[in-house]
């Protein structure tokens, strides 16, 4: 630790740039610029954590592979009585696994990540810097977006290359995919920030956040076909956003004939949009009200 060379223009007597030109220097542009820089930083860290890589990033791909291979012998889903028609197990599981990926990349990833950062002092340190809270959120949400796009690309690649799944060709289907994805991932990321407040310590973060996320996957049509669940369980699942994300994605990736087994016999995309928007707004409000860099005076 040698000396720091004395090139400092901010001698204590000179008016500080932070004080004088404050309003312009600390405006929206700076918030966005720092947010963009945080996205790169956060994404780099994401891919350096082997546990996140496995339980969040690769998990849906692994589950798709396991389910597709394990149930291959049971024949196609939705086949005619003579065994013709229908879609492969991999094709049937694909939308659910993408939905699971959206939930994991947002809720589980950010819920655990931010709770851990609160526990280990990262947030306290950031709270002492001039980093805007919004830039921090941009970084996290951008990381969720970047990693989940890669995750879905990988899922589609495995589905097509390893299991010969045929992707939709109708542009309208892909338009549906885009809005369901964007609404789903935004909701999931915001809920992840909101839920990160729940664990009392960084160490308990995975124990608090992973179980509800896992249960949601079982009751929302990810691992088990939604139409086969009892009505009351379908009703419970309908309260939560994952069921709606999965339903929206089924409308994209499954043949039109599969709509008949959905609740109400239709994809009901209007309800998908409304349910996700309600969760998104509720999540934003919770984040706005509860997010603090540290638990003051705890």
């Amino acid at each position, binding site marked *: 630790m040698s*000396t720091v060379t004395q090139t400092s223009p901010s001698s204590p007597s000179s008016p500080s740039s932070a004080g004088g030109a404050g309003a312009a220097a600390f405006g929206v542009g700076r918030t966005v610029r720092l947010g963009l820089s945080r996205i790169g930083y956060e994404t780099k860290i994401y891919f350096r954590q082997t546990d996140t890589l496995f339980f969040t990033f690769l998990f849906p791909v692994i589950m798709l592979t396991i389910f597709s291979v394990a149930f291959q012998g049971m024949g196609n889903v939705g086949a005619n009585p003579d065994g013709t028609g229908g879609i492969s197990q991999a094709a049937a599981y694909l939308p659910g696994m993408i939905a699971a990926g959206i939930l994991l990349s947002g809720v589980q990833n950010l819920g655990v990540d931010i709770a851990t950062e609160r526990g280990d002092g990262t947030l306290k340190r950031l709270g002492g810097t001039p980093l805007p809270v919004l830039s921090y959120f941009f970084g996290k949400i951008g990381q969720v977006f970047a990693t989940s796009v890669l995750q879905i690309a990988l899922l589609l690649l495995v589905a097509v290359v390893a299991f010969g799944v045929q992707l939709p060709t109708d542009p309208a289907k892909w338009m549906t995919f885009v809005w369901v994805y964007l609404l789903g991932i935004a909701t999931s990321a915001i809920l992840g920030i909101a839920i990160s407040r729940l664990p009392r310590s960084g160490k308990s973060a995975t124990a608090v956040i992973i179980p509800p996320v896992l249960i949601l996957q079982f009751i929302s049509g990810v691992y088990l076909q939604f139409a086969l669940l009892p009505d009351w369980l379908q009703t419970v699942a309908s309260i939560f956003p994952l069921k709606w994300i999965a339903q929206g994605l089924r409308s994209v990736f499954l043949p039109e004939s599969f709509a008949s087994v959905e609740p109400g016999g239709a994809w009901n995309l209007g309800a998908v949009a409304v349910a996700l928007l309600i969760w998104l707004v509720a999540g934003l409000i919770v984040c706005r009200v509860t997010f603090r860099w540290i638990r003051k005076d705890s």
Partner: protein
Amino acid sequence: MTTSEIAVSVENLTKSYGTFAALKGITFDIKRGETFALLGPNGAGKSTTIEILEGYRDRTNGEVRVLGTDPQHGGLPWKAKLGIVLQSSGESGNVTVREQLTQFAGMYPNPRSVDEVIASIGLEEKAGTRIKNLSGGQRRRVDVGLGVIGRPELLFLDEPTTGFDPEARRQFWELIRSLKREGTTILLTTHYLDEAAQLSDRAAVVAGGVLVDIGPVGSLGSAEARIPIVRWRESGIVREQRAAEPGAVVAELVARLGEPEGLEVVRPSLEDIYLDLVSTQFAGTENTEAEARVLANQTDPTAGTMRESELA
């Protein structure tokens, strides 16, 4: 003194957790460019004070101004003028030293050069190493680097050299002196009194939530506490005498005994004076054992109730 010459002003600051009073009315000022040390035993209120000044905790009462701003309402431009080195850092550290410093440099309007800071914290060899793979002392140096990267006007250092080896500590002192030469105001808490003596212009001793003494490090404690001690052995018994003029006492001894056995003249060290200050703070309470336990437990908010019940 005008307000622009004062970096930190604290007046009658109190902080309570429930019924426990962690700070019972503390008053001091730190001038611009001054290096000020806050000394005191664990749980004395040092960290509570520094965290109130940093804006992490709200005060219960009193007036606080840090660079002219109330820390409870300090915005981003205010934070940009501060450098904060917290007492503990436990980040997982999946980024390299250079990446972390670069990321933090981007947050400040007029940061130092990353390479310059890496050199100043002596981590050139480790610049490309992930922080989690550094030793404790090296990680602490990264903390210090992150504290100074934004070219702060006011730098908070909460026990910065804990875990440093002696050489790293000397290097750290050099770094602090160079910041001081640039005009940086520094508030330091430390357990190492030699560190306070080396670095600070003035120091305050806090014990039990009260400011016990304040002044240049050399003048801390009562004049009496700084009186030298003459020690010698006479008829097999060690004797000692406090004397403002120890030479006269020694001359008298020599005249009386010839060459005295085991003769020493000791000037009370800063350590002695400090321990004296901290212990006299609690003189007068009968149950000193309970006090000691309260002191040891002061970070625990329930300690307050314990104090009341045991001293009632």
